[in-house]
């Protein structure tokens, strides 16, 4: 049996596009396409983390609006990771070290979570 480049390329790409579905994980650059696949109610703990900047007058603005290269979904993932690893303090310190905040501004991390079908807000940190 002989194989040419065409057969190898076709087989490789078709196989690799299937494996993320089979293993239920992303194998970059081959992705699992599970966006919105779970019903909202099936997720045991639906939550979002927001990272905002508080100014001296009490006004707030999402950190992502400051052209930092990270959008709200990135910040959600990062805040969640550091929160569950008990490193939220490190997270906010690093954000403050970035130099993107003025002296009188503070970082606030908020967790929005569904409890018994109702959204609740928990401010986890103001620094």
């Amino acid at each position: 049996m002989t194989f040419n480049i065409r057969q190898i390329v076709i087989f490789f790409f078709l196989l690799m596009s299937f494996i993320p579905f089979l293993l239920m994980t992303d194998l970059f650059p081959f992705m699992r396409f599970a966006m919105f696949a779970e019903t909202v109610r099936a997720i045991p703990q639906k939550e979002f983390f927001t990272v905002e900047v508080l100014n001296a007058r009490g006004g707030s603005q999402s950190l992502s609006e400051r052209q930092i290269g990270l959008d709200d979904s990135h910040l959600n993932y990062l805040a969640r990771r550091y929160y569950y690893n008990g490193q939220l303090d490190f997270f906010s310190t690093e954000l403050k070290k970035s130099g993107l905040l003025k002296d009188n501004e503070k970082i606030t991390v908020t967790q929005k979570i569904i409890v018994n079908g109702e959204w609740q807000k928990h401010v986890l940190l103001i620094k």
Partner: protein
Amino acid sequence: MITSSFLTRSLLYAGLSIVLWILYFQLLDVSALLTHDILSSSKANKGWISWVHELYPRLAVEKLRFPESFFLTKAHQLLLRFTWTSQVLLTYFSFSVFLFPRFKKIYAGLFDTCIQNKYIPYITTLLYTSLLLVVYNAIIEFNGLLYFSAFYHPVGIGKLLLPCLPSLAILWVIYGTLLTSIATTIFLPKKWFSASVAALAFIYYQLILFGFGKYDHGFSTLTYALLVYPFFLWKSEKKSFDTTSPAWSLVLIQCLIALSYFYCGIEKLFTSGAAWFYSDNLEQHLLLHDTALGLSLAQHEVLCRWLSFGVVCMQCSFIVLPFYKKSRYVLLPAGFIFHTAAWLLLDAGGWFNPWWAMYLFFLFPLQPQETK
């Protein structure tokens, strides 16, 4: 007419299928035990559990968030997918080899196509202009990300290719390489090498973004097209064909795009079943994403259910696109409307979505390759 050998083969196929599903039910208990082992062990553990953590990088955080039953459902799902895949493979071989040999006709010759050379500059320009629209402001993103290098945690091949966040100078090199390779692919006559460089630079661009925690599926079909397209250019530039070039790689791109939609559809069916469309799921998603249009649509319960059902049907139907060309007249507009609606209603993606941009591979006619 049903012959005795056909009957024997059919019985063999049915018997093997039954064995497969008995095995599935027997292994459910084993998967529960393995799940418990994985959850009760730390990441530092050596052996197969560390490989599980490599494969599922979010497991370390998610086991702090969710109960064991959540992971048990995932383990059962994994087992179901392996069994389902085995069943599909068994059916494929049974049908095409010893039950219905004519079944092969559906896909035989799918890749034996060619395209007129006059279309190649249009495809190339459209593809690499789409890439340009995605990456033109990458250096601004890179500049911002440099402030947060402490948060950079590469996963998968990122650990090998970009173990730490590069310096600004290197990021400028990646950005410059991206733009130069796009320009040279569009404007220079020999394109396959610069097209390969563009694909590699785009992979690096994504690895940098993904190192900050979130994989973006919006680039998937564009990435597939960029990885395969250099093979097309290489073949078309290798020999001086008169008027046509072999188009197997373009058909492969079509298949990968179609499969991407198909996986989106069956992921929903595997993960949530009919609850994905026969429940208040879309309304809940619309309420969560909190856009003005989405909130007004969420008021219409029946419409939401039909729209959800339509999305799953549309995504699963994309699989027929490479086989039945006429389906593009329905599926491509439906796909475009779907992505635009997802942007307006769920704030997913932007006005320009690389998924619909890649429909360009269905716009140019392919013809059967002449056999010599």
